[in-house]
């Protein structure tokens, strides 16, 4: 048995708990059946599904998000890292072990739901629904663990780690497929279809497929972060594969709009590049950006150590490059002219996309400059404040005092055309200059010689 799972079984499944939880659930479900008057009335199913959500998704996310964070707080994590146990075994042990008690209750809830079966689903459909619900809960827990591991890399040398944030992210990522799974069964038949790149899928099948796909990538992410915890190197191929799938996933949904409006692949390209831009922000926030990391990358480059370069290449950098490529494809695929003969591609869309790229570069540079300042332990939080000022407070104030046109120079919106791009480009250049200054200051502080 996985040693981490066994340790958690020792800790979590005490005889008292093994008696108390089933007893409490049995009483609750008996009350629900009593209120409905009979099995199959739906009351038991509602109670079971609600408690399942609470146990497996809300509480399970908490437990999984806390799995490694609590070990670090209790100073037991280093002794685990020192064992020769593999990253996959460790990842599985942490994920299943930390949530083992929640799964005990969740299993009872799923059984109660199947027993009630208010939609009179056939066995195959019920099996799919149960699988979708299990995958939703596993996704919630895995995402909470993934984000906790990523944030712990940032916070290891300072700053508090709040498990609640990981839990909330887990709840969000698990609740979506949870709700979608139930919504896929109106009137007991899986009739709602989803269009993806023009192909029609049964809604539940698509929910199940999507959940499994992203759960797979989440588990891969946990495995990779666990490798880093165990001092092993990662190459960027898994991240690039995830990026490609995420972009294709978004593009597949947007493609329907292109077909409906006759705008071809433009909406799909826009969705794909927006996904890349969003993931650039995500990784720029979540990856360590200190001077040591960047100097190690520089050293690997100087030594022409390809494996070292690939391992140390920041994922936000790779994603930014792909987002820029996506932006170029958006302009290339944009309609040349609008309905009223307006010049769309190079007159309106081109400048907006170019401005968006400049502002993305500015924001990443801002995050990088804050990350390079070793005296700042909350660079990411400060970046959130700066970005809110740049995107909300300043434009709002300028608009209030009647300078709406000037406010547009802070946002990637139509209005100024190519002269506006120059203003956005100047902001990006200024941010890069700040990065250069921060880099020099960090080098001076960092090391002799």
């Amino acid at each position, binding site marked *: 048995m996985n040693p981490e799972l066994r340790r958690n079984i020792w800790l979590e499944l005490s005889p008292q708990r093994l008696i108390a939880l089933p007893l409490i659930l049995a009483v609750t479900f008996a009350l629900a059946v009593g209120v409905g008057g009979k099995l199959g009335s739906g009351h038991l199913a509602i109670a079971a599904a609600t408690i399942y959500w609470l146990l497996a998704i809300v509480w399970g996310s908490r437990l999984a998000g806390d799995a490694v964070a609590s070990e670090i707080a209790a100073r037991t994590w280093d002794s685990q890292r*020192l064992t020769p146990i593999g990253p996959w075994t460790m990842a599985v042990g942490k994920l299943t072990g930390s949530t083992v008690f929640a799964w005990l209750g969740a299993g009872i809830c799923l059984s109660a739901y199947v027993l009630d079966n208010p939609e009179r689903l056939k066995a195959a459909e019920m099996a799919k629904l149960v699988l979708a619900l299990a995958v939703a809960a596993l996704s919630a827990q895995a995402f909470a663990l993934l984000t906790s591991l990523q944030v712990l890399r940032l916070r290891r040398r300072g700053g508090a780690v709040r498990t609640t944030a990981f839990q909330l992210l887990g709840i969000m990522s698990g609740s979506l497929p949870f709700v979608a799974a139930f919504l896929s069964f109106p009137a007991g038949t899986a009739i709602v279809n989803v269009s993806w790149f023009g192909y029609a899928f049964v809604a539940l099948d698509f929910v199940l497929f999507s959940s499994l796909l992203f759960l797979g990538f989440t588990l891969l992410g946990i495995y990779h972060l666990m490798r880093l915890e165990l001092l092993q190197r990662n190459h960027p191929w898994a991240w690039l594969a995830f990026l490609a799938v995420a972009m294709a996933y978004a593009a597949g949904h947007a493609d329907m709009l292109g077909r409906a409006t006759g705008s071809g692949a433009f909406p799909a390209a826009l969705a794909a590049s927006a996904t890349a831009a969003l993931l650039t922000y995500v990784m720029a926030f979540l990856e360590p950006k200190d001077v040591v990391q960047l100097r190690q990358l520089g050293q690997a480059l100087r030594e022409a150590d390809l494996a070292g370069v690939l391992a140390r290449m920041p994922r936000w950098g790779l994603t930014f490059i792909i987002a820029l490529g996506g932006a170029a494809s958006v302009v290339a695929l944009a309609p040349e002219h609008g309905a009223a003969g307006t010049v769309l591609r190079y007159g309106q869309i081109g400048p907006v996309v170019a401005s968006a790229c400049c502002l993305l570069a500015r924001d990443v540079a801002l995050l990088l400059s804050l990350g390079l300042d070793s005296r700042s332990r909350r660079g990411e939080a400060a970046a959130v404040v700066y970005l809110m000022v740049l995107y909300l407070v300043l434009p709002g104030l300028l608009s209030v005092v009647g300078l709406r046109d000037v406010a547009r120079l802070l946002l990637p919106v139509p209005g100024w055309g190519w002269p506006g791009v120059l203003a956005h480009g100047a902001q990006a250049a200024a941010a890069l200059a700040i990065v250069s200054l921060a880099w020099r200051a960090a080098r001076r502080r*960092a090391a002799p010689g």
Partner: protein
Amino acid sequence: MTGTGSVVEATDLCFDYPGQRALDRVSFGIAPGTITALIGPNGAGKTTLMRCLAALEAPFSGAVAVAGIDTRRDPRAVHRAVGYLADEFGLYDTLTVRQCLLHAGAMRGLGRERTAAAIGTTVQRLGIADRLATRAGELSRGLRQRLAIAQAILHDPRVLILDEPASGLDPEARRALSNLLKALRDGGMTIIVSSHILAELEDYSTHMLILRDGRLLSFQPIAGRTASGPRRLAIALAAPDARLMPVLAGQSEVADIVMVRPGLEASFAFVGDASAQAGLLRALVLNGFPVARFELQHEAMQDAYLARVAAADGPSLARSAEPERMT
């Protein structure tokens, strides 16, 4: 300072924290079966060095090899060869001592039978055999320390790294720890121990590695602590004999003679092994010297430390480099 026979070897080791270089071109080689005391003031880089040796941190540049394995190339293999106890360690408080050790064995991949055997040996060695059913959270500080060490040595590592292991222990527990470390060393284990308290290292260390400001100030054997290499012997006669100095000076293994009381008491460096030492004593007795005392003279850690620091800095700076809680 490095050697091919080393079980732990650091070569130009540099480690950076953002904004600070913690280790700066540190190089040394530690021979098997020795106990190295890692000494230096707060912030000298002791804990960082230990974490690099245990492959818990990757160096910025340079290399660390443990049992011939590069910590950057194969950290997991290094983890198999190392036992490590951090300064502020944690235990699974709600597990019993037996469960803690079973878990440690399983995590080390020992297998059921090997784990059971290792637990039997280790709890006897650590004196916690009667506590197997006790929860870790209910143990005293000293017993928690013993359990933590038991977890660290359960897989019989070649190298044991202990960061401030005696911190918070009472004198009896310190004595037990000292005996344990000596027994482990005699069993062939190589041990690296850090402490602010030189008195506690005094008892068992064979080598002293001094760090200051992330740099290696000195790494040398402590006189009288190693089986080979120069040791210092002391001799005292029951009655004065003027021949003492010339006879000692005539021995090939003897050097650096200091006459404490002329003709009566002396100390000297001796490069021979134990049988050569016995040979010298026999020769002195056969020559009619009334030998009342003939023994290995241990170099006091404190004196050795200050001497090394003074040699590096000049005497005026030596005091400022003393570990803060040195006793």
